[in-house]
């Protein structure tokens, strides 16, 4: 299920990835090469393991008691699961946006600069610059520039999610993981997020889990289809949607199951 990348470099290389929750085998032998500066969509019905796969890419399973990961996930050639690797640093370089917007109960400014703060940046002027830069890139600056020191919880759902994206951008990652980022939002907010993703891919590698095939078709360059804990097929988005190789992919695309 691997395609020749061509002129694009491989940013993240997943080999023989297995994830276990206790005795439950949630992800079986997944292989995937993620191209740099492209949007790769992970699709599949509920419970197929796409979120499990995504969380393995920034070592979020470390936080789940009873979860076990085998195989390798290489960032620029270095396996992030190597024992000498610091998960904290991994998460500087691979950021994550969650399904439900989860801004901290702090001001908008504090949310935006949380990442740099925990990494040791204390200079107020620098933090302001970082905040402005990230909020601009997340297409939120104009809406919040006059109320940076108000509570982030007062923002609308769509704004909160863009704030969460700004939060991630502030740590200057190279890869951005998104777990159904628009599923809790209304259509207008969703389309704003999708436009934003289109912009982000100029500078970042984006991997996005989505339950909406239409969304995957709209915004992604490459698509991977998951089913029951297995990665079934991966290819360019147009190939997957128009000429899928595997029957199971075709059944999903054509709506045989949800």
């Amino acid at each position, binding site marked *: 299920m691997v395609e020749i990348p061509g002129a694009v470099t491989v940013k993240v290389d997943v080999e023989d990835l297995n994830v276990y929750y206790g005795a439950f085998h949630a992800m079986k032998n997944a292989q995937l090469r993620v191209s740099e500066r492209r949007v790769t969509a992970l699709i599949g019905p509920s419970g197929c393991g796409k979120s499990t796969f995504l969380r393995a890419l920034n070592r979020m399973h470390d936080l789940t008691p009873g979860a076990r990961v085998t195989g390798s996930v290489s960032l620029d050639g270095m396996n992030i699961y190597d024992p000498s690797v*610091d998960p*904290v*640093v991994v998460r500087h370089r691979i950021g994550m946006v969650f399904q439900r917007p989860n801004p901290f109960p702090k001001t908008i400014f504090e949310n935006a600069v949380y990442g*740099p703060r*925990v*990494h*040791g940046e204390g200079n107020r002027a620098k933090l302001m610059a970082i905040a402005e830069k990230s909020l601009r890139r997340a297409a939120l600056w104009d809406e919040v520039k006059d109320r940076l020191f108000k509570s982030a919880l007062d923002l609308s759902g769509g704004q909160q999610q863009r704030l969460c994206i700004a939060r991630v951008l502030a740590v200057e990652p190279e890869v951005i993981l998104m777990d159904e980022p628009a599923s809790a939002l209304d259509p207008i907010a969703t389309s704003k997020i999708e436009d934003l993703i289109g912009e982000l891919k100029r500078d970042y590698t984006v991997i996005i889990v989505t339950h909406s095939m239409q969304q995957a078709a709209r915004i992604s360059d490459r698509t991977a289809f998951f089913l029951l804990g297995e990665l079934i097929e991966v290819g360019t988005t147009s190939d997957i949607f128009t000429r899928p190789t595997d029957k199971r992919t075709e059944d999903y695309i054509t709506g045989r199951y949800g």
Partner: protein
Amino acid sequence: MAVTAASGIRAVASRAHRQEFVAKLLLRSASIFVVVAMGALLLYLATEGTKLFTVDHVSPFQFLFSPVFDPDGRKPGSLVFIIGSLSITLFAIVIGGPFGIAVGVFLAELAPRRFVNMMKPAIEVLVGIPSVVYGWIGLTLLVPLIRTLTGSNGFGLMAAAIVLSVMILPTVITLSEDALKAVPDALREGSLAMGATRWQTIWRVLIPAAGSGLGVAVILGIARAIGETLAVQLVIGNASVLPTGLLSATAALPTEIVIDMAGAQQGSLLEHALFSMAFLLLLIAMLLILAVRFVMRRRT
């Protein structure tokens, strides 16, 4: 210490990591302290509590089963206090147990929102009232009442049992309420959908389903009752004789300890006997904890 992409992803000894290490160390030490405290408690009380047998050569059999409490004559039989403790606890749980469970059921299933919000602070206040105050209410209100109603002098088992049952109410109520709230809604809805009345649902389905939680409520109510000292001491009459009826004055393990410890010389037989009683209370408390764990594990 901003990290750039070029620095790779090897572990970096940053300030954050040092803080993490120190924090984890301190937090872990605090947890170890808790274990050490409990261990020390067990150790010291076991040591001092067995001196009656090891140093004074009193037989455990006499200590536990003899009704004659005469420390000066080397006869520290504590049967009176053991029976006293068991009796008042039994009566307290027989009165307070069902009553507390009933109120707990009420709060979880029947009470309107606003009533529950009023009861919660009320129960918190009841919990917060110091045991001496309960004892004092018992002394000044309940004992004269019993005196007029029955002609006895008012002190004794009944007064102590009533005071205790009031004191364990908040514990039993809160735990019963929690136990019922933990029963899944599916059972409630299933029962009502079959045409059962509210009460039938509660009595036949919910209470059995909450069985283990209610068991825990009762066990912890017992634990509270057995260890209660001051309130009981003020109303029980403090006579070192076996109770002959509900109205007879008697004594319990904690009350005897608190009364006689003041006059007990360090190293004397009396002091050792009192520590043995304390050790016995400790063992009973640990037994109750194990009972709670056992009940919790048995839930289907």
